[in-house]
Each structure stands twice: as structure tokens, then as C-alpha cells.
């Protein structure tokens, strides 16, 4: 069984879909883990590339738009990703390198071409907003399945589709801004339908997965909407030209490479 659970977002990973034995007993925590592990297995790919359109809708009504390209290499939990901003002109060339690790939090660096400087995004800063969007830096991380405990809360219907409702709680060894998260996994294809993150008892962020399409055998959500429940703002990431298992070089996922 794959050990890693990517419950996210910027890299649009939880998009797998597959048949599920609806007769399975769903109250045991082991089953909950099985569900998410299966969901992950179905989204497995050696690499991924897409172009993203990021629209941030402030509570005041102000909308900002940015485009990026994402390349991801490697399996869940051990992957490396590079996000490069393309527009607007002021942010063109700004890049973010995310290197996930199985045993610790990911390393993240940002490259700013105008000052020719890279900066490390410290672990302590992962809870801050990702460049004014409603995602946080932590939301870009892939999570190690062993660092969470799971509980199947029951079943629910999202957009008319039956889902399992699984609560994930970080273990003591895992640092996270979130106290817990609840993920809705579609019973029909094991794709994620919704992810809600909590701080203490309070839901703080909600991610909805929409426009689900099967690409190269992987169910992929093409519109991800993250809502900041405190601020009342939301950000929509629209995925375009999504490709899996493309030929990507390991050398492109280094600090030196993003400086190019």
C-alpha cells in the first residue's frame, strides 16, 4: 500500500476516481485509511504538468488573476514540484520549488528574478496565505499518510454524489496549522469532492473539487475552489492542459534550476 496521502490542492492531486465496494463496513478507522489510500493509488502518476489560472476573489469584490505552470515529478509524498508564474508581467518568472519528504515537512523555496534572490519558506510560515490567495503554503504540501490518524465519520452527498466523510487528524509528531480536516471522497470513483480544514472546532478553509474529468485514467478535478471561511474570500484554480506521465528531468527540480 502506498504510504502517502496527498490531500491537496495547488498540485491538484486528490483527483482519482474508481469503483468502491459499497458494501464495505465503514466505521473502523482502518477502513477509513483504506479509502484514502485507495483514492491515492488511483491518482498515482510519475509526473504531471498543467497550466493554472488562479483567480482570487476578495470579500470586497476585488478580483486578481494570475497564471502559472506546474510541473510535478515523483510519487506522492516524495514528489518535487515547480510552480512558475507567467502573468501578470510583474510576477513573471517568480517560481516556487516544493520538495516533499516522507519523514518531515516539505522544503519550499521561492525565486524572485527581479532581485535575483531565492528565499526559503520556513516551516513556521506555512500557515500564512500563499501570495494573497486563499491557499496557505501548507496547502501545497503532500502529507505522509502515517502522520495522520483517520476516522470515518459517515456518508454524505456532495453535488448529488454519495461520498465517504473521513476525518484526518495530524499525529503529535506532525506540525500543522490545522487541528483536523474532513475529506469527502466520492464512492463512485474515489475522487475527492471536498476538503474542509479545522482549527480547533472551527472550520477555516473549504476546498471544493469541480469539473471532474478522466485524463489518462486519472479522475482529475479541473476547477478547485478554496474558500477562506473567516475572511469570506475565495480563490479558484482552473487547470488547463493537464498531462500525466510526461517526460520531466530531475535536474529541473532544484534550486539552481528555478533560478534559470
Amino acid at each position, binding site marked *: 500500500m502506498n504510504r502517502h496521502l496527498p490531500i491537496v490542492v495547488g498540485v491538484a492531486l486528490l483527483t482519482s476516481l474508481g469503483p468502491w465496494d459499497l458494501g464495505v463496513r465503514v466505521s473502523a478507522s482502518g477502513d477509513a485509511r483504506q479509502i484514502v489510500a485507495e483514492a491515492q493509488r488511483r491518482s498515482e502518476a510519475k509526473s504531471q504538468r498543467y497550466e493554472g489560472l488562479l483567480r482570487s476573489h476578495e470579500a*470586497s469584490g476585488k478580483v486578481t488573476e494570475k497564471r502559472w505552470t506546474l510541473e510535478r515529478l515523483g510519487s506522492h509524498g516524495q514528489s518535487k514540484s515547480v510552480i512558475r508564474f507567467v502573468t501578470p508581467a*510583474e510576477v513573471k518568472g517568480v517560481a516556487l520549488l516544493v520538495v516533499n519528504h516522507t519523514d518531515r515537512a516539505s522544503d519550499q523555496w521561492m525565486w*524572485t528574478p527581479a532581485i535575483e534572490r531565492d528565499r526559503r519558506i520556513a516551516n513556521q*510560515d506555512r500557515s500564512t496565505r500563499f*501570495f*494573497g490567495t486563499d491557499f496557505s503554503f501548507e496547502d501545497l504540501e503532500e502529507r505522509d499518510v502515517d502522520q495522520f490518524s483517520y476516522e470515518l465519520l459517515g456518508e454524505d452527498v456532495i453535488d448529488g454524489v454519495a461520498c465517504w466523510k473521513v476525518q484526518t487528524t495530524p499525529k503529535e509528531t506532525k506540525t500543522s496549522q490545522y487541528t483536523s480536516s474532513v475529506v469527502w471522497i466520492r464512492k463512485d470513483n474515489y475522487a475527492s469532492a471536498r476538503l474542509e480544514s479545522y482549527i480547533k472546532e472551527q472550520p477555516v478553509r473549504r476546498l471544493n473539487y469541480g469539473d471532474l474529468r478522466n485524463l489518462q485514467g486519472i479522475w482529475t478535478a479541473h476547477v478547485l475552489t478554496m474558500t477562506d471561511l473567516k*475572511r469570506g474570500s475565495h480563490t479558484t484554480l482552473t487547470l488547463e492542459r493537464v498531462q500525466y506521465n510526461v517526460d520531466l528531468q530531475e535536474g529541473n527540480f532544484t534550486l539552481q534550476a528555478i533560478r534559470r
Partner: protein
Amino acid sequence: MWILLRLIGWQYARKHLLRTVLTSAGVVLGVAVLVGMHTANETVLLAFSKTIDRIAGKTELQISAGDAGFDEEILEKVQSARSVRIAVPAIEAIVESNLSGQGSLMILGIDMTGDRGLRDYDLEQGDEAEIDDPLIFLAQPDSLILAKSFAQRNRLEVGSRLTLGTAEGPKTFVVRGLMKSESGLASAFSGNMAVMDIYAAQKMFGRGRTFDRIDLAMQPGTTLVECQRELRGLLGPAFEIQPPSGRGQQFETMLAGYSLMMDMASGFALFIGMFIIYNAFAIAVSQRRTEIGILRALGATQRQIRNLFLCEGAVLGLVGSVAGVASGMLAARSIAAWIGRLLSSVYGVAQRADELATDPKTLLLALGLGLATSVIAAILPARDAARLDPVHALQKGSAQAYSTSENRLRVWAAAALATLAAGSLIFSSSRLVFYLGYASAIGAALLAGPLCSRLLSSALRPLLQWLRPVEGALAADSLIQAPRRTSGSVAALMLSVALVVAFSGMGQASYQSIDDWMNTTLDPDLFVMPSPNLDVQTTRFPSTMGPELAALPGVSRVQTLRNTRVTFRDTPIMVVAIETGSLEKTAHLPPVQGDERQMYRLAAEGKGVLVSDTLALLQGLRLGEQLEIAAPHGTLSLPIVGIVIDYSDQQGAVILDRSVFLKYWHDDTVNAYRVYTTGDRAAIRQRILDQYAGQRQVFVLTNEELKQYISRIAGQWFSLTSVQIAVAVLVAILGIVNTLTVSITDRRKELGVLRAVGALHAQIKHTIWIEAMSIAAIGLTLGIGLGSVNLFYVLEMVKRDIAGMRLNYQLPVGTILTLVPVMLGAGLLAALWPARAAVRGSLVEALEYE
């Protein structure tokens, strides 16, 4: 007692209202100076500490390594500490706003990705806050967030452009966000505050890959001490780890010297006030002998009489103190504004003190001191009043002469104190002994004052008689026969003049020393600097400029200067790094201690350091002693190979070779280049400016311009001396006015008799004028004598406790010559009204007086 006070004391005060007011003026002035200066100090410190708090936000600890900064990699170490919840880097830079009347702008460089865990910029909450786009802000190095108040003052809004001076020359910045005016950070420095990305700030202000400091918040449940201990273990001794409030230490250190000098001035004012009160009370006792006699005849006890006068003293002191506190508070705001401007050199941005900080302890102390001064001054007259025999008291006549036994006692006491003062000089290495000696010297002068005054009056008599046979003789006799009447005034004058002489001598010697130092040390023809303001060193040059400057035609030598403030024995001192080998060839000042040739050679080889004389004196350092300074890359431990005169910093300086600095600080940036030329200086200056035009912000000051700048700064610091001198002169004038007013009232009968036997109004007026000027002349003479002693002690205080400056003893002849007409003029001026009053009253009433 209250009945006596109301029926007798109050009636007397009401009858002699002007005299009462004048009597309490000394206390008013002393208390006012004390309250004004301390309140102003506290106000400025409060304003600065508020600014520090506003900038610090929720920061619990700050990590710094002097003002040199430290490598970026330290941040990760700090972030990895178990006790640290959040740690963010910061850079501070001062830039000219280039906006009319707006002065400088404090730029705080921070990492926007994590900084909001500590600081609230109030950018996104509420309708008023605006920010364009966080990613654009980070991606564009010209991004700036301004305080909304500053933006509104200058009609700037999001998207506006603003040109600021940077290490790379003037750069246009774009306002990409506004901080709410009332938010913590935006209100620091009265809104002259801007935020930019720290990595852009590094580039803009030539900081390389260094941070100025790290601000951090601790994990919940961790104590400050635990966190400090863990971080000290991680980072080593070169790093200061202290709460934000610790940053106020530098101001406090700077203000400490000021406070000491002002305390001295207010102490003198109170002391002088004491003599004025004593004088007034002594005369009042004499005038009220009949009244005392009646009270005693009616059964009043000695104790009641003594307490009556003591209570009068207490009431006078209390009223004077309250008036002094009120005046001090009124003056505090102006003084605070002045100190704020002076201390802006630390941050480079003027700190406006909007809220007056009143410390109840200071006010109570001032009230207590004022009260005590007045009561102490009233003790002797009260004792004399209590001892008056009712029979003698009811007899007509006055008692203004000292008894022989009283005189003898004074002379012996004066001699004993003078001997003690002289003896204490032998053991003056002890602070206590030194100050005891100082007090003894003042005490001896005060005790010997009446005798000296009488001798001088006798000596003056022939001269006065020669000048005006009748009026001169009358005036001189009045002084000789009634020394008690004038002794207090003469003592007050003597102290005032002594204070003026000492402070003026100190100021003159300080100027002279700084001037000598500038002429011998600051000898390069040109100084190339990244900022026109010498105090602001937040922008630095790269080391690559050195060879470029050296290659310019007409440049014969370039020296690289890097200075940074570090903490040594809990005191902020300056480290000056320069090529000591090159310095040897240009330095002309012989060392205070050490072999001139050897010390530069050893320093150049990295085998020793030079220290300034000020540092050696303040910290008790000796030649050959091993000096240890904790630096970011190890503890520098080198012997002191020379002690030199250097006034780079108030708290002292360590001068070391640049190679040593590079080794221990890993910082090759430069604060200034010292350029020696062989050709036309103006042409070379222009060549340098042309070389860097558009690439780098460069200011080239000529030798004269730099010296003028330093002189101006020194002038600002020493302007306090003028305030002290003004206080002393004012107190002196008060003393004369008081004495004469009292004297005229006391001599109404005597003056009435003179008028009755045919003395002209003019003759009486002239007598009083001559008497007043004689008092001024005697006070002046004695004051100059005491001042010459006082100057010695003040110079020692400056050396030991204030600035560590070894100043040459030199009497301020110019000031003394100025004091002669000022004091004689003040005497004459003070006599005008009493002289008019003396001839204006009814002759019958005057003859019936007493």
C-alpha cells in the same frame, strides 16, 4: 501653630509679597530644571520605547549582533530552536524622503511571507486598508507599503511613485500598500515609516546577505530565560538576545550623561536657592524681632517660635516646589522636542514626543527636594529667632553682624573642609572619596564666603570712596557692617558664577579636544559616503569601490572605514575597522599610551587592537590588557597595543585592522572611504561623483565640510551647557534682586535718616546702585575663585563618569570677561527698582520703621 502661621506668617508674606516671590524663585528654578529635564528625558524615552514596541509588534525577543548585522543562515538556526514558535528577520534603513518638510523615512525590511505572525500591518482588515497584490509586492523590489498618514500628508496613494535614495542611487519606488494610520507599526515615528521586502531591502541598501536582527515569539509555555538560554547555546556569545525593550538601553546610556549634568545644574540651583531663602529668613528674623519679642512676652515658647519659622519655610518651599513642578512640566515638552531631535541620530528619524511622560516619583522627589531645601535654609534663622531673648527682642536696633565666636567657628570649619578636600585628591581613585572631596571644597568655600566677603568689602571701600566719596563709603560700610544681610546673596552669586565658569570651561575644553582630534585624525581630503547624514549608517558601500576610487586620477590613497556598534561589558561601544597599516602613514596624533610605530604594526598584523582613551577611562582598560569582543564568527581576543584619542563614539571605540574585522564579522561592506588626493580636490570630487552617477548613491564631503558637520553635532550636544549657564546666570540675578529688595526694606529707617539729614534722592539711589554692584563684584570674584576649583572637579567628572574624555584644564577667560559686565549690569539692573523704592516712600513712615 496654624493660627500663628495664619495670623503672623501669612500677614508678613502678604506685606512683603514681592520679596516672598523672589525668595521662592530659587526653589522654583531648581525644581523646574529638575522636573523639566527628567520629564523630558522620560518623555523621549517613552516615545522611543513606544516606537520600539510598535515596530516590534508581538516580538518577545530580538536577536542582534551589534549594528553590523549577521549572516542569513543564522535565521534557520533560530527557527530550528525548540523554544521558538516564530522567528522573522528584519532590516532597518533610513532614507531621505525627498519630500518637502517630511525629513527621513524609516524603512523596515521584513519577510512578508511570515512576518505577520509577529506584526500587524493592518493592510487587509477593514475598508480603509489597501494592498495591491502580495505577490507583486514580493516580486518587485520597488514595492513599498507606506503608513497611511504619511501617504495622506504627501498626497500619495496606491500606485503612486516615490523617489528615495538607495545604495544604488536614487530609485523610484511604487506604493503598493497602505497601513492604517492608527495601527501599531504605522504610527511609529509619527508615520514616517515604510515597509518593504527584506530581500529587496538587502539589495537596495547594500546589505549583502545579512540581516540586522531577528524578531521572535516563543513557544507557549516557554519562559524568556529558557528561550534565551537555548538560543545562546545555539548562537554563541556574539549575539544579543533581549526583549525589544532592551533596545532603549542605548538611549538611556546617551541620556545618562545629559541627566547627570542637568541634575548638577538643578542641584546647584536648589543649593543657591537655599542661600537665597536663608538670606531672606535671616533678615526676616532680624526685622521681626519686635514681633518675636511680643510673642515670647505673651507666652509663646521657643519651640513655637522655631516651628513658626520652619513652617513658614515649609510653606514657602511647598509653594515654590509646586510652581517649579508646574513650570518644569511646561518646559518639558520643549526640552523633549529638543532632545528628540538630538537623539534622532540613533534612528535617523526624528521622534516626536506627543505624550508627556510624568513619573510620579520624579515629581515627588522634586517636591521633596524643594521642600527640604526651604526647610533646611530656614533652620538657622528659626533657631536664632527661637533663641531671642524677649527683652532684647523688644529693644530697637538690628543684629546683622556675626559674632566673633561664630566667625572663628566658620573659619575653622572652612579650613578643615579645605584640608579634607585637598586630602581627598590623594585618594581620588575612589569615587566616594572624590565626590566627598568635591562636596568638601564647596562647603569650605561657602563657610569661608562671609569672611572673604568682608575682606573684599574692606578692600573695596577705598576704591568706592575714591569713586563716589559719600555714596561709595556708605555702600561699603553697609556691606562691612551687615555681612549677614549680604552673605547669602554673595554665596548664591559665588555658586552661580562657579557653575558658569565650570560648565563653560568644560564646554570650551571639549570643543578644543574634539577640534584637535578632528584636525589630526580626520585629515583625508575627501570622504566618500553613502548618506549625507553621518549618523545614519544604514546604507553601506561594497568593498569593490575601494580599488575603483584608488584608480581615479589624482587619488593617492584610499582608506576603507567600517564601523559598527557592539556591546562590550553591557555598554554599546563602537568598533572601527580600517587598514591600520595605511593609518599609520597618515595619523599624526601621538598615542596616549603605547609605542606609536609598534602599535600600528601589531594592529596591522592582527596581533592587537587600539582603544580610544574614552573607552579605556570609562571601562578601566590598560595597555597590554587582553580585550575580548564577542563577534558573529568567534570571540575576538587581542591585546590592547595602544590607547589613542578618538571621539568616534561617546561610549568609546575599539580600532582594529580591517582584516581582523573581516575575519570575525565576515562583512566586507564599507561605511565610508577616506580619500587622499594629490591634485585639485574639487575636480577629483566631481570625478568621483561622475564615476558613480546613476549607479550608486554617493556623497563626497570635503575635509572642511566633514569637520563642520561634526562641529555642528558637537555644538548640539554642548548646547546644554548654554542652558546650564543661563540657569546659573538667572539664579545669580535672582540672588542680587532678592538681596537688594530685602536690604532696602531692612534699611528703610537708615535710608530715612539719610534723607532727613539732607541726602539727595540721587545720592541714595547711587548708594544702592554701588552696593548692588559691589555685591556683584564680590560674588563674581569669589565665584571665579570657586569656579576654577569647580572646573577641576567637573573635568574629572567628565573623565570618570560622563564621557571618558581627558580634557585640558583651561580657565574660560572669555566667559569670565563676559561675566564681568553681565554680573555688574545685572547688579545695577536689580538695584533700579529697590533704589526707586528707597526714595519713594514717606519719610515719616521710614523713620518710624521698626
